[in-house]
Each structure stands twice: as C-alpha cells, then as structure tokens.
C-alpha cells in the first residue's frame, strides 16, 4: 500500500494538494502545513493513484512524494 509523504521542511501550506484531493489532506492550525490523512492507497486503485500523482504534481514546493506505507 502507498501513502503520500509530506516533507514538512518544504511544505508552506499552499493547499494545492487539498484542492486536488480534499479527502486525502488536512491542515494543522499552527503552521498551516499539509498532512496526509487519507486511507493507504492500493497501487492497483487507478483512480486514487492518479489523484495522488496529480497532488504531487500540483505542489509548488515539491514537498510531496508517494511512498510505501511501511516507510
């Protein structure tokens, strides 16, 4: 299973990932940074994988990566 890792050093809270996939991201109040809150993604789930790829692409700070859940 895959999850989306948010590099908190890079994330500045643009919210583009949230715009693309509102169910997968949430923002903490203190710094306004994004965190992945979605269920782990089955790599065979084409729809969710595509959405994840769009979120990664959309990030202006290149803060997102799709990683294995175990990581």
């Amino acid at each position, binding site marked *: 299973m895959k999850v989306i890792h948010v590099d908190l050093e890079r994330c500045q809270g643009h919210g583009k990932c949230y715009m693309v996939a509102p169910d997968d991201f949430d923002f903490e*109040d203190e710094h306004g940074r994004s965190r992945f809150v979605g269920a782990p993604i089955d790599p065979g789930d084409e729809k969710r994988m595509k959405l994840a790829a769009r979120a990664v692409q959309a990030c202006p700070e290149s803060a997102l990566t799709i990683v294995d859940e175990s990581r």
Partner: protein
Amino acid sequence: MTSLFTQFDHTTPPIGADGTPLAFYEALRDEMLQTGTDIGWSEQHGGFWVAAGYDVVRDIFHDTEHFSNKGVTFPAYAVDDDTTLMLAAQDAPEHKKYRRMVQGPFSPQKVQSFNEPLKAMTNQLIDEFIEDGEVDLVARLTDAVPARMTAVILGIDPEDGDLYRKWCWAITHLFLTDPETAAAHVGEMDAYFRETLAHRRKNLGDDVLSLVIQSVDPDTGETLSDQEIKDFFVVLLLGGIENTSKLLSTMFWRLGWDVEMRRRMQGLTGEKLLLAMDEFLRYYTPAWLGRLITADVEIGGVQMHRGQFVILHNQIANRDPRQFTHPDAIVLDREPNRHFGLGMGVHRCLGAHLVRYEGQIVAEAMLKRIPEFELARPATWINGQVSGMADVHLRFPPGAGRNGTSKPALSEAA
C-alpha cells in the same frame, strides 16, 4: 539592441494598446530568453536587479539567507518609523513567530466556512446595482467584497469598507503624490485602531484581531504590544483588500470583452473555478515583490552585493515558457499551475486560499445573475506594487433584485 532591462521601472511599466502592460512584460520575457538574461540590471531608482526567469525567482523566494524581506516594498511604503510591515517585511525568527499566530484562520477548511457570509454579501452588493443596467464594478463589487470580507475577519464594521480602502490607498499610493493628505488618512486610521483595540480588549470574539490580542509568545509567555497588534491590523487590511480587488477587477474586465471566455467560465463550478482563479492569478499577476540582499551572492549568472535590491518580477516569471506551456494564453484548466501570483516559500500569501475562494464565489454569483455584460468604456489600469484595473464600467440588461421587485422606471430614467 538596447536592453529593456536598463530603463526598466517596475512602478511605471508602459501601458500597451490593450490597456495593460502585458505586451511590455512579454517583450521583456522575450529579451530574457533571447539573451539568456534571467536577471537583469535596471538603472532606475538608484539601480536594482530584476529577476525575471522562473527558476531564479523560485530560488530567491527560497533563499532567505541572502534575501531579506526588509526590501519587500521597493521603493519603501510610507509607513512611519516605528512601523514595519508585519509579516511581509519580516525575516526569521520574527516572521515565523508572528505568522504562527494567525495561520489557523486562513487554512483551506476555515476559509470554506466563510461560504455563507461571502455568498450573502456578494448577492447583496449585486442587488444594489442589478436593476440599473450599468455599474462601475470595481467600486460596487470587486473592491467592496474583499473590503467587507476583511472586515468580517478582523471583526470590524463591514459597512466601513470605503474607509479601509482609503487608508490602504494612502499607504500604498497617495504618499507618493500627496504625502500630507496621506499622513492625515493614516492618522485617522491610527485613531480608529486605538478605539477599536480598547473596545475589543473588553469584548473578545472569534475574529482575528481578538486572536492576536490573546496570542502568547510560547517562549517568553508575553502577549503582544499595542504596536504589534496595530502592525497586524495594518498588514491584514492591506493584504486582504488590494490584491483580491485587483485580481477580480482585471478578471471581469477581461470577461467584459472576451465573450468566449465568459461562456466557458459560466460552465465552471467548484474546483474548476478555483483552477481558473489560479490561471487569472498567473496571467494578470497583481503583485511584484522586492528583496534586500543581505550577503554577497552569485545567482542566475550575476554577482549580487550586500545592500542591493532585487525585484522578483512575478508577472514576467509567470510567463516563462520553460515552466508554462502557451504562457501567453489563458488556459482556464491549467494544471499544474505553480505560479508566483501569491508568492512562494515561507512568505507565500497568508490569505492564498481566501483570495481564490472569494474569486470563486464572486465569479459564480456575478456570472449567474448577470450573464450578459459588456464594457461601457475603456477601463483604467493602475500601476503600483499591486496593479490591475482601477475601474470597470459595465453595461448589461437590467435584472431583478432577489426581492423580485424590478424597478424599470429607474433604468429608463438613467
């Protein structure tokens, strides 16, 4: 070939036949690409760097070690000596400390909770002119919505929107041409603020001003001084009103003559409209940003020296074909769209979600209630750190207010 960079003055770019400086920005962009000048040197204002390439602008946004926000306005705004532009003109660690205090209310989720008040105020403002068949949309809608929304967020009276706009104008523009009147306006703002603060301390609410009053420094346990709170007040007013206003007015000017684009916009809702807002932010980027160089640094093939200024020319970087395909076209569903219209890095616009959301709600309401409109006369572009259309006179078939009573007599008389 003489370089356009040499005489470049970011405060007065030449206006082209279309009524905007876009052709000039495109010419600068083309020179940049042909000569490999990602960063040029202008001899205006005592000399300064002009960062125009997408990659170098991004690198400078992220390099807070060499580039200080002390130079965010260049030449500087006329704020008095005790006042620094809270957040905007600060560096770490102050910036981080203050930003953390106000970050919460501007998150995407919080912003969506403004849906109802935003829709209501937009429709009320449209009601006030929909029966007239003509309007200066800037005065009646695109200035008014952000001014009222900012008031709601600060917990001050939305009906005083004209006052807030006057103060902002005094700080950002009037001080250049009429410093005495500007100082009088700023004095009026100070008095209003002192009265508001005294009252709010006794009547705390869930507005951002109350939040700031109650903020405690996690390290020292201290609350903010009156001056610090005032600095927040000023920067939230400035940041909340002008950028959004210019984005919306320039967008509606475009939709006033570009009928095909208006039709396409009318078919958009929700996330698709938010994407369109990002594209308008890229294409008609309202603001450029300055930085003060605090240590010698080599970047983009030039050697910069401590004490010099650099303008991050978002408008040009946002039309860099190395980052954006078909940069000179408005592509309403452009994605990804990693533009600099709201800045980048730690200083990215605090109200980034709010700007787009206001745009979405206002566009949706306006295009639904007044689907057909045209420009009644050429609009007026205004230059400055935040630029865009200062008036947009529209003509349209009169509609009915939401209370259902249309007043045909009024439009016949007009």
